[in-house]
C-alpha cells in the first residue's frame, strides 16, 4: 500500500532555536495520528510545515495526489499547493475564527469552499451547505446567520463543515477541542470520530490533551524540544510509555 503522506526529515529552525528536527513518518489511508507534547515542543511547527503553512528548512512531505501519484508538496508550486489545500487537504484551526470568514453567513462559509473547486449552481451549493450544517448538528435555520452569532462550539463545528464539504482525504487539526467546555468537547469528539470513520479520512491531530488522542487517534507521536521521543500505537504509548518524558506526561494527568 502507498502511504497517503510520507514525511521525511522535516526540520525547521527559528534562528538558533529548533522548531522541529528530523521528523519522519508514513501515514496510511484511513489512519488517524495524534501528536502530543507540551507547549513549545514543536508540534504546531511540524503541523504547519506539513500543511504548507511554513516552509521547512529541510525534508520532504510527499502526498499521494489523486491525479499524479506521490508528489513532494514542499517543492511543488504555490498554486498547486493551494489547490491541494482547497481539495484533498483540510485544516481545522484551534480558534474557529482563524478558519472561518466571520463576516459571511454560515452557508456562505461552507459554500465558499465548494465554489473554490468550481461549484457554480446556487441551489446545489445551498443544499449542500444545509446538508453539512445538519451533519455537524447545526440547525438548518441558522444557514443565513453569521458565525459571530454562534457559540464557540458551534463555530468549531461550522469550521469542520467548511473543511469537509469538499471531501478531503487528509485533515490537519490543531487543538480542535481546545478552549471548549468539556461537554461541548465530548460532542465534537463524537462527531469527528463518526466523520473520520464514515468518510474514511486520514487525519493528523495536534493536541496536548491525552484523552482526546486516546479517543480519536490510532497512533501517537510524542514530541519534546522539537524531537520525536516516542511513537507507536496510541494505547500502547499511553499505557506502557517507554521514554522518560512520556512517562512524566502520562503520570501528570489529573484523575477525575
Amino acid at each position, binding site marked *: 500500500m502507498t502511504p497517503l503522506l510520507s514525511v521525511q526529515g522535516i526540520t525547521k529552525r527559528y534562528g538558533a532555536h529548533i522548531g522541529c528536527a528530523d521528523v519522519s513518518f508514513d501515514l*496510511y489511508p484511513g*489512519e488517524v495520528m495524534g501528536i502530543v507534547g507540551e507547549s513549545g515542543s514543536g508540534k504546531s511547527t511540524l503541523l504547519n510545515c506539513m500543511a504548507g503553512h511554513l516552509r521547512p528548512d529541510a525534508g520532504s512531505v510527499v502526498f499521494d495526489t489523486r491525479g499524479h501519484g506521490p508528489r513532494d508538496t514542499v517543492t511543488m508550486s504555490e498554486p498547486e499547493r493551494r489547490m491541494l489545500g482547497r481539495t484533498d487537504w483540510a485544516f481545522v484551526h484551534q480558534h474557529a475564527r482563524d478558519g472561518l470568514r466571520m463576516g459571511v453567513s454560515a452557508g456562505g462559509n461552507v459554500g465558499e469552499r465548494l465554489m473554490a473547486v468550481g461549484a457554480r449552481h446556487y441551489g446545489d451549493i445551498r443544499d449542500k451547505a444545509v446538508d453539512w450544517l445538519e451533519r455537524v448538528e447545526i440547525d438548518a435555520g441558522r444557514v443565513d446567520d453569521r458565525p459571530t452569532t454562534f457559540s464557540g462550539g458551534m463555530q468549531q463545528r461550522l469550521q469542520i463543515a467548511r473543511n469537509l464539504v469538499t471531501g478531503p482525504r487528509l485533515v490537519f487539526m490543531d487543538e480542535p477541542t481546545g478552549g471548549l467546555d468539556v461537554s461541548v468537547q*465530548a*460532542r465534537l*469528539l*463524537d462527531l469527528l*470520530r463518526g466523520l473520520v470513520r464514515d468518510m474514511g479520512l486520514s487525519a493528523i491531530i495536534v493536541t496536548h490533551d491525552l484523552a482526546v488522542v486516546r*479517543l480519536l487517534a*490510532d*497512533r501517537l507521536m510524542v514530541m519534546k524540544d522539537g524531537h520525536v521521543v516516542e511513537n*507507536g*500505537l*496510541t*494505547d*500502547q504509548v*499511553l*499505557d*506502557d*510509555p*517507554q*521514554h*522518560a518524558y512520556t*512517562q*512524566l506526561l*502520562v*503520570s501528570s494527568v489529573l484523575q477525575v
Partner: protein
Amino acid sequence: MIDLSNVSKTFTLHNQGSAVIEVLSDVSLTVAPGECVALTGASGAGKSTLMRMIYGNYRAQAGVIRVGGVDLVQAEPREIIRLRREVLGYVSQFLRVVPRVPTLDVVAEPLRAVGVSSDEARTRAKELLAQLNIPERLWSLSPTTFSGGEQQRVNIARGFAHAYPAMLLDEPTASLDAANREVVLSLIEAAKARGAAIIGIFHDEAARARVCDREIDVSRFTPGLSSGSEAVERYNESAA
C-alpha cells in the same frame, strides 16, 4: 492461533530513580483454535501484564508474540489495529466508551468495523444485550451512567459481538450474578465451539474448571521479586 516464544517484559520507571522491574521472562505458550487456557498465579504475578502484551497494549522487550500470523512485538500500529478489528478480541474489566454513544451502537460497533451492515449489526447487538439481561429501555442511552455490573455486561456484549478467532478475557464473570454468569459462560463455550482460541483470567474457580481446558501458572515466568511485582501493580494503577 496464539503463539508466544521467549517473551520478556521489564518496566523501566525513568522518573522513579530509573528502577527496572522485571515482570516476566522467557514466556512460551501456545493456544490452539477451540481451546481455552486460563492464566493463574497470585495477584502481581503478571497475568494482566501478559494479556496486555498479547493485545499489543504493553510492549515486550524480547521474544515473539504471534496471533493469527502477525508478530505483535514487531508489527506496525496499523497491522495491530487490523488484527484487533478482525482477529483478536479483548474483554477488559472496564468499559471505555465515547461519551454520548448509545449502548446499542457501542455493542454494534465491532461488527460495523468489519463491514457488517448497520441493521445486521444492531440485530446482533440487541440479541446479546437481551441475552445479558440489559433492560431494553437502556439500549438507547450511553452506558457511561450505568451501574458497574451493567457496564461490565455491555462490555461483554461488545466483546462477543464479532466472532473473533482469538479472544482475551480478563475476569469476564467477576461481579456478575448467577444468571448472568451462566450467560457469559455459555457465550465462552459457544466461542470455543466455533473454534476461537481463548486466553482468560478467572478468579472464579468453578467457572475456570468449566470452560478452561488447561491452566498456565504465570508465576513460573516471574523472576522471584515479590516487592518488585508490588511496585508494578502500583505502576499499573497509576498508568490506568
